[in-house]
């Protein structure tokens, strides 16, 4: 969906759902996700529909992901770091009535 205008930026290595990905130093996890080719970040709790980052300014909370073991972090507000493990958030297991 997005491409990098510069291919000479300094990079770090992160994993998204276990897949190794290069990310530019200083960019947000959401930016790295958009550049990775698959922008999906989570499934909604209500219908399980896929979502991708929408506002990239901390407002919409659509880019919630698990980052280094911590759930529901706003990927657009977290800067990538070498070795960071990012996971897409699955739909939470529903309550049994």
């Amino acid at each position: 969906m997005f491409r990098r205008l510069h291919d000479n930026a300094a990079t770090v290595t992160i994993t998204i759902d276990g897949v190794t990905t290069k990310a530019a130093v200083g960019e947000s996890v959401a930016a790295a996700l958009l550049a990775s080719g698959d922008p999906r970040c989570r499934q909604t709790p209500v219908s399980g529909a896929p979502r991708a980052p929408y506002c990239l300014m901390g407002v919409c909370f659509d880019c919630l992901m698990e980052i280094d073991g911590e759930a529901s972090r706003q990927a657009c507000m977290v800067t990538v770091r070498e070795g960071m493990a990012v996971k897409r958030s699955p739909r939470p297991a529903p309550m049994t009535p």
Partner: protein
Amino acid sequence: MSDLDIIVLGGGLVGSAIGYGLQRRSLKIAVLDEGDVALRASRGNFGLVWVQSKGQGFPPYADWARHSADVWPGFAAELEERTGHKIDYSKRGGFSLCMSEKEFDDRALMIKRMHNQQGPKGYDVVMMDRAEVQRMMPAIGPEVVGGSYCPHDGHVSPLRLLRALHAALGDAYHNEHRVSAIRTRQGGFEVVAGEDTFAAGRIVLAAGLGNLALAQMLGAELPIRPQRGQILVTERLPAFLDYPMNGVRQTAEGSVMLGSSREEVGFDNGTKPDVLSTIARNAVRAFPILARARIVRAWGALRVLAPDEHPIYQSLPGHDGAVVATCHSGVSLAGAHALDFAGYLAEGKLPDRFAAFHSRRFDVQATA
């Protein structure tokens, strides 16, 4: 407007449940509500349909709460069936957790007293040790030493309940009709609300703390006061908790409600960070995995409390046709309000045993 049988003043859970019950008995009614911004304990409460802690030292309330819990499943099923609105009621029993040996012993003593008080009517609450509690709720923290379990307890979405009741009421529900005057007239009452005047043979004051002002319109003072409870709710989490308890319950949506403080701060329904922090701390002690959950909302809501915290049901002095229904437990008692209390109103007489709920009980205490 042609005369109604009964006007219900208040469109929260108490008023709406009573209104629903009256309508279900084919009475001509109107339910008058205040508007989008009201104190609205119905919107702020915790959602427990509760038995185990109710009516200590006051058997009439213990019986009434238990009766309501008994009729709740039928009430819920019928309401859902009539309206098509799910209310997420579940009755698997509920807990009260004990975080120390002392708390456990105190709780056990209280439960024993309740057993003695309720006698053959059956109270059915049991104390469980840590291992038993853990079998039913594996997520408990290391500090939990045990708890009491009551099979009659349950929980519901209070918001969905209110929505279903309003749906059932249909055109009888009048929002933005804050009552500005109540006048007596031959054979009944006229109620001025919003730009309309309603007339009926009888009225029910069911407006929570709003009952203070409504009773004054008829020259009566009610001994009720606000008590603030603050509540936190988390984001939707994967299901981990099958049972509700005082202070923690996972809703049908997966979010977890955490509560609740008891503060005497008048009509201030705001939140305070130190109180919220204490609630959070207690929740994490009970269920450590909650530490990582994100809080998405917090609010304060005002309980409607009589001095002994039990309900008040009575006619106002000099106005037999003006009945007060005021209580803290609009959720727990919704079943009994709809199915039983509405019946008493339809018949025009509260049962004799309801004399115990009259506010004159406080005069007796004062002179005793």
